[in-house]
């Protein structure tokens, strides 16, 4: 098992390296400089600034410097926010985006798996239809519609929750629900489908035949097998939640890393673009690895190569 994980982990490094070099070159190909603005920058000042960030050197040299720095865990400076390093910006923003993603995930799992179980257990009943209608709605409504709608009700009409900002628990409720609802809908459909598939399998029939109570059959036996598709989806879902938070973080003015995916590129903030790309690709690769491992733990039929 450990050998398998270690081997897969080593395999991630070349992939990551290719991503880094490719994105480093692509962002430099984009026209425009990190330092241009509507008020023209005097030439002598521009030369000074470019030298400070090492942008006056040939591209391969810059790439070499960047990789060296990266090897030491240093993402370098941000050109847009000179008072902060990229490490600092990510260290400030990442926990905020993570918090938001976890709230969204908790909401999605709670509502989604709950609705999925109801749908599967009471298949084709009114409850099932309601749960699946919710799922349909959740998938169809984009976050930029759901977010303002929630703000309209909870912030502007009832003055219950703030319409934007970050700092207290009150600030993450609306964005969490906005971000999580679409995933809740996916989870509901996956759970329902997964559970229905195992309902007819031999081991569930055996469980019923043993005379186990309904709840034990559902939670001990059915869920374990039936949740496999949900678990598969969980890894990419977390990664996607973090990327997908771009719009939600904009709507609710949350200072997470979401908006950097777009803004850093628009600002030609080379350091920050690279920091975000490296972070997100590392996250995505790790999540995929984690899912593979989780599979083995949940489904006894899957045996890992090299595992005992």
């Amino acid at each position, binding site marked *: 098992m450990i050998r398998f994980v270690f081997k897969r982990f080593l395999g991630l490094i070349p992939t990551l390296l290719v991503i880094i070099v490719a994105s480093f070159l692509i962002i430099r190909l984009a026209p425009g400089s990190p330092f241009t603005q509507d008020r023209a920058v*005097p030439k002598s000042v521009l030369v000074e600034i470019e030298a400070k960030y090492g942008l006056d050197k040939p591209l391969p040299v810059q790439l070499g410097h960047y990789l060296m720095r990266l090897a030491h865990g240093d993402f370098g400076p941000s050109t847009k926010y000179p008072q*902060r390093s990229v490490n600092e910006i990510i260290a400030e*923003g990442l926990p905020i985006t993570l918090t938001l993603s976890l709230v969204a995930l908790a909401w999605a799992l709670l509502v989604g798996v709950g609705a999925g179980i109801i749908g599967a257990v009471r298949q084709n009943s009114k409850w099932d239809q309601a749960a699946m209608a919710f799922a349909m709605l959740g998938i169809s409504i984009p976050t930029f519609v759901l977010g303002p709608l929630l703000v*309209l*009700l909870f912030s502007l009409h009832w003055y219950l929750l703030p*319409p934007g900002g970050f700092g207290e628990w009150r600030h993450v409720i609306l964005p969490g629900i906005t971000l999580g609802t679409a995933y809740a809908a996916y989870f509901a459909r996956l759970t329902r489908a997964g559970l229905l598939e195992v309902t007819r399998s031999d081991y569930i029939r055996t469980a019923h035949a043993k005379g186990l109570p309904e709840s034990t059959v559902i939670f001990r036996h059915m869920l374990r097998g039936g949740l496999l598709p949900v678990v598969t989806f969980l890894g990419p879902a977390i990664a996607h939640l973090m990327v997908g938070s771009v719009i939600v973080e904009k709507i609710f003015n949350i200072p997470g890393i979401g908006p950097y995916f777009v803004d850093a590129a628009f600002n*030609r903030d080379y350091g920050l673009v690279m920091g975000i790309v490296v972070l997100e690709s590392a996250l995505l690769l790790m999540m995929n690895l984690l899912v593979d491992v989780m599979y083995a733990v949940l489904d006894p039929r899957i045996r890992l190569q090299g595992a005992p």
Partner: protein
Amino acid sequence: MVRHAWLMVIGCLVGCQQVDNPYFGTATLRHSPDELRFNNGAEPRHIDPGKCSESSGGEIANNLFSGLTDYDPATSAPVPDLATSWDISPDGLVYTFHLRPSQWNDGTPLTAHDFEWSWKRVLRPETESVYTSILSDIKGVSAVTQGSASPDSIGVHAIDDHTLRVELEHPVPHFLELVAYYTFRPVPRHHLEKFKAQGLDETLWTRPEYIVSNGPFNLKEWKFRQYFLLERNPLYWDAKNVKIKFARLYTIEEAHTALNMYRAGEIDWLGPSMDVPAEFIDSLKHYKDYVQTPHLGVYYYWLNVKKPPLDDVRVRKALALAIDRQSLVTHITRGGEIPIASLVPDGLAGYKALPIPLYDPDLARKLLAEAGYPGGKNFPHLRVIYNTLTHHKQVAEAIQEMWQRNLGIQIDLENREWKVFLDELDSGEYHIARMGWIGDYADPNTFLQEILASYSDNNRSGWKDPTYDRLLKEANNTVNRQERLNRLQMAESHAMDAMPLLPLYVYTRKFLVKPYVHGWHPNMRGIYPLKYFWLEETRAVRELPLQENPK
């Protein structure tokens, strides 16, 4: 059951309109009256007064640092701040400022030497200040920016701790207002030199844990991309007249989010740098807390005089005359913008705008025919570029339609991402490009010199004219005020005869400000010193004169 739920949601949405409320959203103060909250727009790149170049950073620098003069909250005219008085030589070339005793917020005395050092610092390339041109009226500065002299040679001298002598290249009638601008505000030399001696990166000195300032407020917190929290500075010389204790400046970039936060009472004012978006004006302008005021800024199109057929002045004039500017501001921008066919707004510091016709399609057609394109025949395909924003797109579409209708010519519209847009502008690879310029001081020079002088980096038209430079210089060397304005008008007239740009309208600002916010005055310069603000719910208090604090 499900149907009832929908009815509830719809009923609530309708109810949210609150037609009987004369204010947009809550008019009740929902936080401590000690703390003013407003939106300051994008996260600033710098808040160092010597390095700032954007409005969000300038707003903070203006309130953390105090200069020789400050702006009157109602008129924006210069009022004494650290300088209690000044002597001006009869030829208008030498200013001697007398400073009051004051201190930095670490207790170090502030002297005239701090000013001298700070202004010279702005000119050093390693400071990376992008706004050195605002100092160009000071003797010797042009030579420094051209690289032929050292910053130490400029005409700024601290005679003693409380006297600062400034020599100018030519008389500058607005110099007292100019020195209120943030680039002229002092930075703590003793602190910065210590910073350097410790081997720390000087850029970091404006972070709350390090910053030393001298203005009405101290920087208490800087939550990256969330807010700046300013706290009243007890060591400020006029601290007893600073009314609010705290000011929280939120960093909100999305107008919709800011509007929501305003409506819910989370912020008290939409802020100095955010307007109500055009699509909301019609539905918001009847609210009592909606304020509309002219702004010292001009929206215009650059015409690239190096690209045929725009190298023919008749074509440039035809394009200018074929735009129905009145229709543009009435139907497209909708915020009370003032149509303008020349660059300097009428009435700016006594200046009279040029009598250029706003709209004359017949003359436009005639000029185009003279240039060899009767009825727009054989006119090459030109391209208007603008940075991606709905507003710019709508303006461009309206103009495209007017040119098609009045001149029979086809123009292509292309939007560009901001950095690509600037790149094309700087490289001169465009035909027509949208731009805007906000004046930094109340004098025609803020437009005439900053945008059109051949030596200005902001002149992106390819139009460089020695005659214009000479006229401008002659005007600026004139001591008599009225004579100077007349000569400036001659210079502008010369430029508008060549028409390297196509002015469209004077900006307006569209604000929302809660009825409990006091000490706030709409003004053309868009400067709102926070030290005059206070929050008070009693409506009657609004009628009191500004200086009388009801507490």
